[in-house]
């Protein structure tokens, strides 16, 4: 079904720790993994799936580690990758960061976790909050309160334990929208997409039932309230706590939330909005002498909003020298390691336009290496604002003990993958 074995390797391909789940393959086969990867790298090739004979390696990289699943069957590849990423998440929750050091420092716990999250190639419980209830980092004595598997592990509600208690019951919601943009070198918008996410921080006692109301267009159409301002969510993805069939039936978002922080849902909209920050650039390269850059940035949202921490990265050739900048606002920095100029604007109100000029020298001997034409990228965030106009209309919280709980909502829009191609 999925993996025969899982390995965690260092950058050189040495096995740091491994777990043989099915016992049907020679564990030494993993020694072929790194040589294949090196060969591919030489050919400027890369693939998340490499093969050696009958062994298939599905791998991901995290920091200085490779997580490699090995199989000889027609495994469910999507499941394997998704599981490997989940493993990373679990380890991060346990050890703050997952890297070579943390594996060595916690190998006993790593073994325990590997034993628990997968059995015979079938992923089991991977919810780190639940795992933490019975795989703790200190040793246990069986007679004095040895942990038992929390009922949660096998419950239908496998993400929340019973008996949680808080003095003050609250829910914090963040509605975060990321704008992905791709603009061609000629200035036409090729793709514009909003990826939204609603994050929860739940501080609630007991087993509360929550219902979330959004200004969802489909819902409003069903209930005949078409006049209100609504948002058409193109594709919605939910945390496993949300009852999917209920949503499918009547668009109700109802759930028993996991405790603490989690992502409740994400959505995607393909509506073409005006790019929030528009960049026009002229990058002129005079071979053997200099590069001249002119960048104009314009904010195209309402003036009552303000974009914060705007960072505009403009690519320059890797061999430039003696940078000179002039800006109408903000500051510029040359980042040689990234071969880029970073123009920072702390606060960029709507409806404004700023300019930046940069001048670089070029060596008289030109490097023979071809450089790709990298795009200009922009980072920003705009608080109290969503591009889509999505609104949380209500969050109803019902718990059988009948406590009152307050929901808090924040909105923020930020740059996602925001790229403008250059000439």
């Amino acid at each position, binding site marked *: 079904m999925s993996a025969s074995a899982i390995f965690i390797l260092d950058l050189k391909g040495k096995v740091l720790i491994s777990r043989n789940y099915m016992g049907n393959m020679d564990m030494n086969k993993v020694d072929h993994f790194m040589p294949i990867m090196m060969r591919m790298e030489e050919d400027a090739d890369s*693939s998340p799936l490499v093969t050696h004979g009958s062994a298939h390696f599905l791998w991901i990289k995290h920091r200085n580690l490779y997580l490699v699943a090995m199989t000889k069957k027609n495994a469910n590849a999507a499941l394997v990758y998704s599981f490997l990423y989940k493993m990373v998440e679990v380890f991060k929750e346990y050890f703050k960061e997952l890297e070579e050091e943390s594996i060595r420092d916690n190998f006993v716990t790593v073994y325990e976790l590997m034993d628990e999250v997968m059995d015979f190639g079938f992923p089991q419980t991977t919810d780190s909050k639940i795992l933490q209830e019975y795989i703790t980092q200190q040793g246990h004595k069986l007679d004095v309160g040895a942990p038992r598997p929390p009922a949660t592990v096998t419950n239908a509600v496998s993400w929340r334990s019973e008996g949680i208690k808080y003095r003050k019951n609250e829910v914090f919601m963040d509605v975060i929208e990321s704008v992905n943009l791709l603009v061609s070198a000629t200035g036409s918008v090729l793709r514009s997409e909003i990826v939204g996410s609603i994050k929860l921080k739940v501080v609630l006692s007991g087993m509360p039932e929550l219902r979330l109301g959004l200004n969802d267009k489909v819902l409003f159409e069903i209930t005949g309230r078409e006049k209100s301002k609504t948002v058409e969510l193109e594709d919605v993805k939910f945390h*496993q706590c949300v*009852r999917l069939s209920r949503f499918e039936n009547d668009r109700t978002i109802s759930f028993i939330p996991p405790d603490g922080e989690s992502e409740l849902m994400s959505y995607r909209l393909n509506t073409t909005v005006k790019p929030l920050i528009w960049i026009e650039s002229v990058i002129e390269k005079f071979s053997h002498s200099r590069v001249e850059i002119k960048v104009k940035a314009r904010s195209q949202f309402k003036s009552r909003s303000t974009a914060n921490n705007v960072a505009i990265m403009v690519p320059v050739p890797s061999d430039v020298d003696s940078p000179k900048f002039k800006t109408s606002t903000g500051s510029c920095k040359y980042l040689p390691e990234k071969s880029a100029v970073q123009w920072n604007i702390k606060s960029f109100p709507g409806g404004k336009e700023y300019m930046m000029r940069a001048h670089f020298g070029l060596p008289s001997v030109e490097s023979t290496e071809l450089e790709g034409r990298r795009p200009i990228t922009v980072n920003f965030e705009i608080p109290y604002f969503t591009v889509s106009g999505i609104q949380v209309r209500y969050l109803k919280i019902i718990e059988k003990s009948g406590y009152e709980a307050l929901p808090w909502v924040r909105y923020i829009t930020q740059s996602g993958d925001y790229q403008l191609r250059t000439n």
Partner: protein
Amino acid sequence: MTDSKYFTTTKKGEIFELKAELNSDKKEKKKEAVKKVIASMTVGKDVSALFPDVVNCMQTDNLELKKLVYLYLMNYAKSQPDMAIMAVNTFVKDCEDPNPLIRALAVRTMGCIRVDKITEYLCEPLRKCLKDEDPYVRKTAAVCVAKLHDINAQLVEDQGFLDTLKDLISDSNPMVVANAVAALSEIAESHPNSNLLDLNPQSINKLLTALNECTEWGQIFILDCLANYTPRDDRESQSICERVTPRLSHANSAVVLSAVKVLMKFMEMLPKDLDYYGTLLKKLAPPLVTLLSAEPELQYVALRNINLIVQKRPEILKHEMKVFFVKYNDPIYVKLEKLDIMIRLASQANIAQVLAELKEYATEVDVDFVRKAVRAIGRCAIKVEQSAERCVSTLLDLIQTKVNYVVQEAIVVIKDIFRKYPNKYESVIATLCENLDSLDEPEARAAMIWIVGEYAERIDNADELLESFLEGFHDESTQVQLQLLTAIVKLFLKKPTETQELVQQVLSLATQDSDNPDLRDRGYIYWRLLSTDPVAAKEVVLAEKPLISEETDLIEPTLLEELICHIGTLASVYHKPPSAFVEGSRGVMHKRLPARTGSCNILIMSKLNSSLLSPQLGGDIGGSPAMGAGFGAAPTVMPASLNAPVGGGLGDLFDLGGGVGMPMGAYIPPKTVWLPAMKAKGLEISGTFARRAGVIQMELVLTNKAMSVMTDFAIQFNRNSFGLAPAGPLQVLTPLGPNQTIEVSLPLSTVGPVMKMDPLNNLQVAVKNNIDVFYFSCQYPISMLFVEDGKMERQVFLATWKDIPNDNESQFQIQDCHLNSEAASNKLQGSNIFTIAKRTVEGQDMLYMSIKLSNGIWVLAELKVQAGNPNYTISLKCRAPEVSQCVFQCYEAVLKN
């Protein structure tokens, strides 16, 4: 304090030291020692010598220590099978521990100890755990059954664990259900004939209920299992789809893909005019697009699958071109896949955008990506005719960049554009010729040479150009050599006067100085052609070739179907069936999509289906240019003429008569004696039946073996199955003297009274003469009744085949027949058995045929012919299945005569 200290190696005698520590009385010291052992094991040191000492620590009340010892056991038990038995007792004991965590740990570890000797000791504890009150233990025990099965399948069956496992599918706990499903699926996969996953509407319903409640992973197990089920009809199919669709909103990409798999498979059964079918199609696009925001590895899996989905159901994503535009920071494997899908989605509506993007990509720095982008431009030109001109000018712009690999790729694709639109863009040849010197890759050189040869009459210095290549003939790769040979022969045929020397030279290089058999053979063929009959040579070599087809890299439809059934798995990423890369799966059944009505031959349906969906895949019998490429899974653009000659093409060239290309007359069985003289007072009647020019004829030979003259002949038929009746009187006008013989043809009609006979083709005849009335019966070949307009429309065939219930299908073997499929088809056509389509799968030709009987009954047939195998398989489908036997006899008779 961290665990890393355990890795610090001590000096020599480490094992010895550890041994002492392991046997220490102090619990803390013991635990530390075990940790050190595990640390050594982790870094790959062999600590198996400590086996007995570590196992001694197993009986502990410390959970962490117990886990470590279990871990050690899993690693080394195999190398120390005898000592592993020492652990059995503890396992048995731990399986009864009051703490469910310990019980589960024991049962989980037990199954990982792959030592045959001890497995039987584990059966009792496992049996208990399967019935444990705690679901955590039960779900672990369920997996253990799969583990044990992998070690000793017989034991598991004998112990009845499989039945217990099946019972767990009805467990009240969703996690237990999910693991039981996973375990059963795993066992079923390695034992395909076990019929373990006996899925029926009830069990499906249970699974669908559990689907809503279990973890994300459990949902995947269940969805993957559901995908193996074939619903009984479209209503069941729809109701399953309805309950699976909500999974498309799951945050886990793997859940989404598994749900897509189920939907793609089951929607095959839904009627296309159903509203729900359209709804479902619309629901599939957004989640597929969202998968492209996942982590790159998952994007890659998604893209490889989208590639399949786009081929199977192009309508799902046809409006989503833009989401496949490449981003600068996409990993190369994502970029290349996106490019592939862009070309598949390219259409007249979006071609401008696509081209602008491709041009952008072609100026990137990543060589592989650039090459593929250039090729993509060429593919667009071939695919979208309206864009060809723009594509060509884009390619010319790119050639001007003079970037070596860009130029070479561009020339390769321009060659293909010429083959699709001959005599349209030859104005660019001059530009191409300027770049001759920079071509160093064989494919590009061969392409350029082909262009020069093909358009030799328009290139003034074609001879010089080709001559320049000839100098290093032996250093060239085979494809360049072959191309050079052909190009020079073409040149010679076009400009014979100036190039005689050149052609001599290349022919002798190819035939005398080369030991490559292809090159030599081709050289000799040209040589002989040229020396025997230059006019004929011209006709052969310079003949117009069929245009190349649009999409040449489509996945062969049956493979595509199989891959759709494997969405999300490695097979879908490799685009190969599991049997191609999983050991020991050769005998495993290939998965197939279900058929629309759930009860007909899915193979043929989907096949015809796909050819209907994309008309370019059509192809008449004899092969259209597209057929070779579409059906034969030729990976690259190939001259269609090499794959499948256009109808009669070969026949025109080589008048081989007999077997190939020539339709032959209807089969006529030899005459047999129907009425012996002894029984008819001296009158002997023999005869046969024939169909000539649409008229059924009874051909009789009457012999008078009596001593007296016979006169006044007349004939009458009894009622029979197809209403055969004499269309006129028996024409014996002169008296038949003793020892005289006369041959008579009696035309028959099919409008006589009908009565079902047994056998069906039995005919009772009465012949009268001046002496008496004689009765006999004979059997006519049913092929006499096959009418000339029996060639069914392809679409009608498809619909009819689906329409006729499966019970009406019968299968026969025709043994010892040595015809190839083409000859067979020709032969059958002579008897009005019409081939409607033909395809080739793994060396096996499938012919789809139709027959119409004189009374309007249609018979549909599928004939499988395997090269080198003299036994054919034939499946017949007919609304009146009783005719099948007779039809089969005709096949046999026709093919063997």
